[in-house]
Each structure stands twice: as structure tokens, then as C-alpha cells.
């Protein structure tokens, strides 16, 4: 099951757990100094190492030619967090290997030769790590990684050197956001080498109160210690979120109910809606479901999946043509009305 389709993740603040590993092949220069020919050879070697018949997992991957995809398909990959904007820069040949359920993706020639990521629904970071570790071993059977006994895995940027690991949770924090506490939280957790940022990573505004929390440091600690540190900080944040939620229910229940039901009303009857508004209303619905305030039948869908499906690339794909902003708002409202009625 693809991580964002699992409705189990509707009932807790953590939506998904993600692991990203950065690796480079020893015999080729890094992105900064490589030629187009070398980039093509890296794509070929990495694809060959992953897509093979030796293991059960290898046959589940398909190679996608990013340059051949149309704009809508590229947008959809970004909206599903499968690729980064950087992969679409035209400088050098790039590659993408995608597992059939989309829970594992391998970007080739992004900032490093190999950027693999594994995602699972809910808070199971250990499952994501095990899978990434397994694929890492699988690739290493065919290639030699750039590795140093003191510095660990060598990466293009020193911010990833060592484990090359970025472990992260996608987390829904409506109460901390609404009460303005999140502003104090961000600098506090930075002290632990942990970063909290908006939905689409660095420098983006949070939408629908959804954040990414991840380790910043990759060297000097084992993978397990890094993930444990992330888990500890995240657990603390969730406790604060729940504490505020309980206080709101106790002291301002009618306001909380009012917000949830107004959101339900607009989503059920609106005729035009911007992405930011829809995301914020869906965030209220999520609150309504997990607090039990919303007495309507539960959506048999992961709310985060809805948040993905109402983004412009997905709307264009559904309608089958490029859409203007106003058209997107109308089709978005259509989908949401259908879902909530």
C-alpha cells in the first residue's frame, strides 16, 4: 500500500516516516565536476545495480526518463514528494528509479549520485530505515561507494557527510501553530540538531499545519542514534500538541467545533477554493476526526492523500489538460464537494 493511501495515519499527528540516504560512486566525480557523459554512466550503473533479477525487490523498480515527462507528470512527482525541484534543473542527465508502490524512490544525479528515499505511513521510522538499508546493501553489491573510514560516506556537500542520512517525519501540528507556540519551538529544537520546516522543505510556508521534522547532523552519530534523537524530540512536540488540544477541548470546545464544522460546510458546498484554503480546511477536518468532535462518518481516505490530489499537477492530470489558476480552484472545489457529500 502506498504510504499516503493508508487511512490509519488519520488518527495521529505523525503522517509519515521517511528515510533518505545520500551516496556517491567512488570512481566518478561528484555533481559539481562531472561531465554529461559521466552522468549517463552513473545512471546506467546505478539502474543496473537496482533493477536486476537477483532479488525480489529489484524487479519492482522501474526507471523513469524524467526529461521525457510532460510538465503535469513532473508536477505530480513533486507533489507526491518523490522528486525534488533540483532534479528538474536542466544542467546534467538525471535518472529516477521508482518502486511500483512509490514507497521507495531513487534519484540519480540530484545533489549526489544517489539519493534514495523510503517512506512509510505513520511513525514507523524503523521500517523505513530497514528498507533503505537493504536497498543500500543491494546497490553496494554492484558498485563501490565513495567512503572513508573517518568521514564515512562522502557526499558532495559536507552537510550530508558521514551517514548521509536524513530521517524525517511529516507531522500535523495545528494547535501549536494556531496558538503561535511553533515560533518558539523551531529555535528550541534547532539546538538539538533537528529542523522543523514547512511541508515542501526549506524556505516554504507551511500549508494545512503540516511540517517536516528532520535531523540536521549526519556525522558523529550512528544511524540509530540519529533516529532515536529525532524520535525523542518529535515525541516531546507531540505531547505539547496533545496538551494544547486537550486544553482547547476543555476550555474552548465550542470554538474548536465551530472551526471543524465550518470547514466541513465549506468543503461540502464551496464552488471555488484556493489550495491554501483547502489545505487549512482539511487540517481542521483532521482535527475533527482525531478529537472525535466531527461526528460525520469518517472519510475512508487518508486526508493527506486528499491534500495531494487537490494540488495543481494532480488536478491537471485528472482533467487531462493544463489548467489556469481559477480553473484549478473550481475543479478543486468539485472534487472536495464530491468527497464530502
Amino acid at each position, binding site marked *: 500500500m502506498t504510504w499516503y493511501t493508508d487511512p490509519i495515519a488519520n488518527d495521529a499527528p505523525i503522517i509519515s516516516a521517511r528515510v533518505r540516504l545520500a551516496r*556517491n560512486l*567512488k570512481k*566518478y*566525480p*561528484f*555533481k*559539481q*565536476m562531472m561531465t554529461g557523459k559521466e552522468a549517463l554512466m552513473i545512471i546506467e550503473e546505478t539502474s543496473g545495480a537496482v533493477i536486476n533479477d537477483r532479488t525480489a525487490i529489484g524487479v519492482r523498480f522501474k526507471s523513469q526518463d524524467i526529461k521525457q515527462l510532460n510538465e503535469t507528470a513532473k508536477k505530480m512527482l513533486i507533489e507526491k514528494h518523490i522528486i525534488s525541484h533540483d532534479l528538474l534543473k536542466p544542467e546534467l542527465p538525471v535518472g529516477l528509479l521508482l518502486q511500483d508502490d512509490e514507497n521507495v524512490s531513487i534519484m540519480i544525479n540530484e545533489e549526489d549520485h544517489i539519493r534514495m528515499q523510503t517512506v512509510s505511513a505513520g511513525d514507523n521510522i524503523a521500517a523505513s530505515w530497514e528498507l533503505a538499508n537493504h536497498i543500500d*546493501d543491494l546497490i*553496494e553489491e554492484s558498485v*563501490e*561507494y*565513495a*567512503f*572513508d*573510514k*573517518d*568521514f*564515512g*560516506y*562522502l*557526499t*558532495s*556537500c*559536507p*552537510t550530508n*557527510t*558521514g*551517514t548521509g542520512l536524513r530521517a524525517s517525519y511529516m507531522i500535523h501540528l495545528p494547535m501549536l501553530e*494556531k*496558538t*503561535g*507556540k511553533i515560533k*518558539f*519551538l523551531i529555535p*528550541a*529544537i534547532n*539546538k*538539538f*540538531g533537528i529542523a522543523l520546516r514547512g511541508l515542501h522543505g526549506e524556505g516554504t510556508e507551511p500549508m494545512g499545519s503540516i511540517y517536516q521534522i528532520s535531523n540536521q*547532523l*549526519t*556525522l*558523529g*552519530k*550512528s*544511524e540509530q*542514534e*540519529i533516529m532515536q*534523537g529525532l524520535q*525523542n*524530540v518529535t515525541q*516531546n512536540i507531540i505531547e*505539547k500538541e496533545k*496538551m*494544547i488540544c486537550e*486544553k482547547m477541548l476543555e*476550555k*474552548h470546545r465550542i*470554538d474548536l467545533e465551530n472551526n471543524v464544522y465550518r470547514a466541513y460546510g465549506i468543503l461540502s458546498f464551496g464552488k471555488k477554493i484556493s489550495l491554501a484554503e483547502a489545505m487549512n480546511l482539511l487540517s481542521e477536518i483532521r482535527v475533527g476526526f482525531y478529537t472525535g468532535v466531527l461526528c460525520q462518518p469518517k472519510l475512508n481516505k487518508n486526508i493527506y492523500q486528499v491534500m495531494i490530489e487537490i494540488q495543481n499537477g494532480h488536478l491537471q492530470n485528472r482533467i487531462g489538460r493544463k489548467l489556469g489558476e481559477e480553473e484549478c480552484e473550481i475543479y478543486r472545489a468539485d472534487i472536495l464537494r464530491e468527497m464530502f457529500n
Partner: protein
Amino acid sequence: MKCEKCHINQATVHMQQFINGNKTEIFLCKDCSLQHEMPISFDNIFNGMLESILSKQSESKKNISSGQKGVQCPSCKMTNEGFKSTVKLGCAECYKAFLPEVETILKNIQGSARHEGKFPRKSGASLLYKREVDKLRKMLASAVEHEDFEEAAALRDKIRAIEI
């Protein structure tokens, strides 16, 4: 009356605070009043964890040394200046070519310059072994220097056992 904080919405909440005997009054809208409530302190929620991480971060606060000008990576031809302007390395060999700068940068941004994580399964076994022997040799040299001959003998035996 407008909210005294956002100056947009109508003030519907009247709040009074007593701090050190001084009374302050403020008129707020519903949204801004929520931000005033929920007095949860974020100063001490991560007690205990802070020390362990900060101690690592403060290990090195040196500035990036200017390094030798004109140094070039023999493998990819990245220059010292090129590395410093982009803070991106050109290849695996750059880590050796610009070793002093790399070490300083890693200590500054990562708080450490020593990998404690996974070793590659196939090619890493010999490196792991070499690292272990290097570590024991350093400990042996230190034991000899401190005339701790009992410890030195034990370390020598350990190194022999590994090398066999």
C-alpha cells in the same frame, strides 16, 4: 474596540495580568487571546538532551582556516578557492586534497569529523578492521608513553589477535 495585538479584528476578550504586583490590561480578539493563553514553557522541555548535543556542537568553533592558495584536487581538478566559494566537493579525493578545510568545516557544522555509522558491507570490512587496529595502536602508544606496561602488553596482544 480593535484588538490591541493584531489591530484588525474586534477585541472581544479582556485580559488582566499581574506580574510582580503590577497589573496590566489588554483587549484582544479571540485568535490573539489564544496565543496569550496556554502558558507552556519551552525552555525546559528537552532537559537532559540538551547537554549531550551541545557538548558535541561546541567541540570546534574554529573559523575555516584560509588554507594554502592554489591547492588543486589531483583527481577532479577542483581548486581550493572553488571549494571554499561553493562549499561543495568535486569528488571523493577532494576530502584528502582539502583535508584541513574539510575537517574544520565538518567540526563546525556537524560537531564532529568522525563517522560512527554504517560501513559499506562489501568494501567496508577491511576499513573497519584498519580503523580498529589504528585505534588500538594509538592506545598502545599512549600506554607506553605513560609507562603503563601492563595495559600496553594487553593492547599488543589484542592487535596481534586481530592481525592474525
